[in-house]
C-alpha cells in the first residue's frame, strides 16, 4: 500500500515540477494580494503591524482556494482519476497522496514566503515565528478541506467560484485559530491554545477529509 502512495506522490511531484510556472504564479498571487492591503488601507506602521497576521492568513487562504481547481481536474480530464479509482488500494489513501503533493506545491511555498512579507508589515521576530508555525499547521488543513470541495465541484459547470463558495465556510475555524494565534501571542495570552486547536483540526481533517474526498469522487466521477 505504501508503494502505491509513494508512486502517486512521485507522479504528482513530477507533474508539478514540469509545470513549475504554476508555482511561481501562485507565489506571485500571494505576494500581490498581501500588497493590496497596505495600498488600500494606508501605510500607518502600527495599523499594518496589527493587521499583518490577518492579511497574511486571508491571502494564504485565497491562494490555496485558487489552486484547488487543479487538484483533480487535470486527472479527471485525461482519465487518470478513473484509473486511480479502479485501483484495489483504498481511494482515500491515494487522495491523501494527492493532497500532500498539493500542499507541497500550494501551501509550503506560502509558508516559506511569509517571513519576508511579515517583515514588510513590521511584525516583530517572535510574532513572525508564531505566524509561520500557524501557517505550517494550518495550510495542510486548507489542502485537506479544499480537496473535499474540489472533488464535489468536479462534475459541475460551476468552476472555481463554486469551489470557493463551498470551501470558505469550512475554512473559517482554520482562519480564526491561525490568525488568532499571533494575536494571542501579541497580547501576552500565549499562542499555545490556538496552535493546539489548529493541530487538533489538522489531526481530525487528515483522517476525515481524504475519506470524504474519496466519497465525493465516487459520487461525482462515476
Amino acid at each position: 500500500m505504501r508503494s502505491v502512495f509513494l508512486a502517486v506522490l512521485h507522479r504528482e511531484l513530477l507533474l508539478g515540477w514540469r509545470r513549475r510556472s504554476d508555482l511561481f504564479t501562485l507565489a506571485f498571487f500571494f505576494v500581490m494580494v498581501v500588497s493590496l492591503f497596505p495600498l488600500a488601507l494606508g501605510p500607518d506602521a502600527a495599523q499594518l503591524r496589527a493587521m499583518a497576521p490577518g492579511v497574511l492568513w486571508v491571502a494564504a487562504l485565497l491562494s490555496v482556494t485558487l489552486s484547488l481547481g487543479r487538484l483533480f481536474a487535470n486527472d479527471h480530464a485525461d482519465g487518470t482519476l478513473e484509473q486511480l479509482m479502479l485501483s484495489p488500494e483504498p481511494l482515500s489513501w491515494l487522495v491523501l497522496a494527492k493532497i500532500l503533493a498539493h500542499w507541497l506545491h500550494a501551501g509550503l511555498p506560502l509558508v516559506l514566503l511569509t517571513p519576508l512579507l511579515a517583515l514588510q508589515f513590521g511584525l516583530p521576530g517572535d510574532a513572525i515565528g508564531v505566524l509561520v508555525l500557524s501557517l505550517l499547521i494550518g495550510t495542510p488543513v486548507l489542502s485537506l478541506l479544499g480537496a473535499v470541495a474540489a472533488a464535489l465541484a468536479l462534475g459541475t459547470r460551476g468552476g472555481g467560484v463554486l469551489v470557493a463558495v463551498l470551501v470558505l465556510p469550512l475554512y473559517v475555524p482554520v482562519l480564526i485559530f491561525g490568525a488568532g494565534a499571533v494575536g494571542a501571542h501579541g497580547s501576552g495570552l500565549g499562542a499555545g491554545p490556538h496552535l493546539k486547536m489548529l493541530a487538533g483540526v489538522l489531526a481530525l481533517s487528515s483522517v476525515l477529509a481524504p475519506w470524504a474526498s474519496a466519497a465525493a469522487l465516487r459520487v461525482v466521477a462515476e
Partner: protein
Amino acid sequence: MKFHALLRYATPAHAYTLAGRLLPWLFALGLLLTAAGLYVGFGLAPTDHQQGESYRIIYLHVPAAWLSMVIYLAMALWAVLGWVLNTRLSSMMARALAPTGALFTFLALWTGALWGKPTWGTWWVWDARLTSELILLFLYIGFLALQDAFEDPRQGDRAAAVLALVGVVNVPIIYLSVQWWSTLHQGASISVSSGSSIAAPMLLGLLLCALGLWLHAGAITLLRLRSIIIEREQARQARWLERLRPQRPKGPQGPQEART
C-alpha cells in the same frame, strides 16, 4: 403489518398524496399557533426592564434562528439517507427543506439586526451567535449551489449529501471557534436571554411562535416537495403522473388528435 402500510409513503407517488393531505392542516395550525404566540408576546407579555419594547423582536428572531439550525440538521439527515439508502424521495425532501432553511437563516440575521440597533446601538456585531448564523447561511447557499450544478439530479443529490455531512460535522467546530474568537475580542457583551430568568408570558409566546413557525415551515416544505416530486418524476416519465394531468375536455377532435 402496519409498517408495511407506512412504507408505501416512501414512494414519491404516495408521498405526493400524503403531503397534499397534510399540508393544509399544518398551515392552518401553524398560522393559528403563530398568531396566538404573537398575541401573547406582543399583547400580553410585559415590557423588558433593560431593553424596552424592542425585545419583542425575539418572538420572531429566536424561532427563526432555532428553525434555521433544526432545518439544517433535518436537511442533512434526509440528504445522507438518500445517499446511503439510495432513495429518491429522501433526497427530494432535503431539496425541499433547503430553501426554507436558508430563508429562516436570513430572517434570523435580519430580525437580529433590527433588534441590535435599538438595543445595543449597532446593526451588526461580530459576536459568536451572529457570525455563526452568517456562516450557516453560507453553508445553505453552498448546498443549494452544488445541487443545481449537476446535469444529473441524482448526482447532484449525492454530492450535496456529502457536502451536508461535512457541513454538519463542521457546524460545532465553526460555532466553537467563533465563540472563542468572539469572547477574546468582544467589547460589549451580548446575550439572547438577557441574563435574568425569562418571564412566563414571554416563554409562552416564544414557544407558541416557535411551534407555529415550525408547523408553517413543514407546510411550505411539503408544498415544495410536491413540486419537486412532479418535476423529477416527469423527467423520469413516471406513469403515475397520468392521474395528475389536468383533464382535457373531450371535444369533436376525439381520438384523431394523435400524440407523438
